[in-house]
């Protein structure tokens, strides 16, 4: 187990370097001068010259990249060109927000999607199955920004049940925090639940037709035991992989949902940073997200091994 982890961490390092270099390069190719975005409407030439020199924006690409990399290795992620706030502060402020949104969304998605998938597989071909499939399809097709705005109109404006937007940290007021996150995580969960439902269904179907299930039924085991203890456990592998990968994606920030619900998370941060050509912020967030994604991949592999005893001992 430790060997696997160590190997993965070693492989992760060149991946991170490559990702950060590509993203840095992409930002530089983008048309648009970051200084025009930060130097104000009046475009004072003296200020432009000063800022250009201060942020070394005229240096060759690799000089700029390695300057950034060198700073990162000493823990300095730079500052936002727009507000002057250190990037590490921004990440520290927004990572918990995105984490909370991601965790709530994946939990809701799993609570809805996995049971729906199991029921759909067990009752394959019946009305329940078709109904579940229809709901799944709509969940995947409905654009989540539309769903978000509709929910705000109905739940917040008309029924006044939940706040329309904004965010309260868990440490400040847990109840209010859950209330502000309820709609956004639900909106995100709808698409994810649909995905999970479909995958659970096909995984279960694959397992339910195998010999050992027939044996278990023949033995006279309770149907619930057959489904949950025998079938589901074997079908879990693809579901686990998918869930962890989805969680990794969520960590990148649900941009549209965050924009609609004004949640100060990663998604909004990186989109605003790209529009204002705020290089340091984009690099910092991408690095963070890449680390998160790699980590979730590792977690998926470890879970694989834990769930499936056959993988614990090399052949």
């Amino acid at each position, binding site marked *: 187990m430790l060997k696997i982890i160590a190997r993965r961490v070693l492989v992760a390092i060149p991946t991170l370097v490559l990702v950060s270099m590509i993203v840095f390069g992409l930002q530089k190719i*983008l048309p648009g001068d970051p200084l025009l975005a930060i130097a104000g409407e009046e475009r004072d030439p003296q*200020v432009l010259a000063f800022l250009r020199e*201060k942020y070394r924006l005229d240096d060759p690409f690799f000089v700029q990249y390695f300057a950034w990399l060198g700073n990162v290795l000493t823990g300095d992620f730079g500052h936002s060109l727009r*507000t002057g706030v250190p990037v590490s502060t921004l990440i520290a402020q927004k990572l918990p927000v995105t984490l909370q949104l991601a965790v709530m969304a994946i939990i809701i998605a799993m609570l809805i999607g996995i049971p729906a998938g199991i029921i759909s597989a067990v009752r394959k071909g019946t009305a329940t199955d078709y109904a579940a499939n229809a709901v799944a399809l709509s969940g995947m097709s409905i654009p989540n920004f539309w769903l978000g705005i509709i929910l705000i109109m109905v739940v*917040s404006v008309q029924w*006044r049940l939940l706040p329309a937007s*904004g965010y309260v940290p868990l440490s400040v007021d847990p109840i209010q925090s859950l209330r502000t996150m309820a709609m956004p995580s639900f909106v995100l969960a709808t698409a994810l639940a649909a995905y999970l439902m479909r995958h659970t269904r096909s995984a279960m179907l694959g397992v339910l037709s195998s010999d050992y299930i027939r044996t278990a039924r023949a033995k006279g085991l309770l149907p619930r035991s057959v489904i949950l203890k025998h079938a589901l456990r074997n079908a879990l592998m693809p579901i686990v992989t998918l869930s962890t990968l989805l969680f990794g994606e969520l960590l990148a920030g649900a941009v549209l949902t965050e924009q609609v619900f004004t949640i*100060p998370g990663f998604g909004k941060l990186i989109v605003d940073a790209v529009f204002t050509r705020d290089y340091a912020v984009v690099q910092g967030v991408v690095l963070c997200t890449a680390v998160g994604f790699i980590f979730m991949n590792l977690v998926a592999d470890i879970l694989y091994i834990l769930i499936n005893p056959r993988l614990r001992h090399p052949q």
Partner: protein
Amino acid sequence: MKKTMFAMLATTMLAATAASAQEFRVGLQEDPDVLDPHRARTFVGRIVFMSLCNKLIDVDSDLNFVPEIATAWEWSNENKRLTFTLRDDMVFHDGTPLNAEAAVANLERARTLPDSLRRSELASVESVEAVDEHTIALNLSRPDATLLAQLSDRAGMMLSPATFESDLGTNPVCSGPYKFVSRVQNDRIVLEKFADHPDADQYHFERLIFQPIPDSTVRLANLRAGDLDMLERLNPSDAETVRNDAELQFMPVAGLGYQGITVNVGDGERAQNPLGTDKRVRQALQLAVGRDIINDVVGNGLFDPAQQPFPPASPYNNPAFPVVERDVEAAKALLAEAGHERVSFELSFGNNTTAMAINELVQAMATEAGFDISLRPTEFAAMQQEMQAGNFQATQIGWSGRVDPDGNLHQFVTCEGTLNDSNYCNEDVDRLLNEARLTPVVEERQALYQAAQDILQDDLPIIYVYHQPWPFVLSNAVQDFKPYPDGMLRLKGVSLSN
């Protein structure tokens, strides 16, 4: 008995906290940038500064200058020396006194900080001195009619000099009625009432919370759901709904800025087309576009048609230049006179729904007169760069507007102007606009701007379309709020009824 006493005490305490913890929540369109008046550049930042910092002078709704930190001012030495008398009862949020020395330090910082964006605004100032403990004087290299207007905004804002060496952009210490508490980027900025402000009894809120909510639909939903007390920049498409909503107060005001079409009339490659080379084609375009139609269809009554860059509130808005009415036949005739049956060009604009609607309408109206416009919605930062590089034919773009008329015109049409993306150059216009900067006498300036406009309204490097409105929407509970043309929130005397 004990239980009843306890219950009564608890209720009174709760009631007391509820009444005194009065918050005022404002929904902004964007997140402000750095909270340093000398380095800040956003409109929404100025909204926050309005409550956080005091400045030398302020403006009223007619754009006249009124005292704030300064009680009186006068020009001397042939309009090259401006002397301010300051109040003696103001302190900064950290307790240090706001005296002449502090004021001089601030003006020096605004003038000399390398990335100060106020430097060009104070370019005419040669030196600043403290005459006595509550009097300062600015010595100018030349008369500058725009200086008072600059000092009524960020250039005249006072920060505590004790904080100059610190990271004041993330923790500003000013002298305004509210002091800085906290900020979470993209989430909120929280200000708290400053008890030692001389006018503290006229400000009725304990806390101000500014929340950037970029989506205008969601911003309005927040207001309706009771999570905000007011918002700025309502989307014009929501104007009807808000007008008909009895629980909201709709307070639009025509702002200082404008939206228009800037044409590339320079010597570059992309200006070598009929629109860029022949003023008759531009005049025809103006005749083809109905500003009132844009106001009706897209603006829902909020897009006051603009013929000139000066806002309606300004004394420099000249009745000699009435709005040109749409006249397709006249447009066609002008095009024919210029030797063209149809003219095609590319119109770029920043990618948002309102601009898209306006420009599609322009395209449709201009087609009837013989223009084939291809629309090019562009990401804003990229568009700015293209304009600066002269890589455009026509761009629909606006300007946020300044109190002084010079701020809405000079840099856009003078040969060396930093904002002259159209690359227009006319010596007479240069001379007239430069002269208009030198005299503070309103009538003299009016005559000079009129002479300049006589040329500009003929050459049309910029076709102004509408005056930028500031559509404020407030909940019914807000009392005594008044919108100002500069779009700023002046919260003295404003209260919330419960």
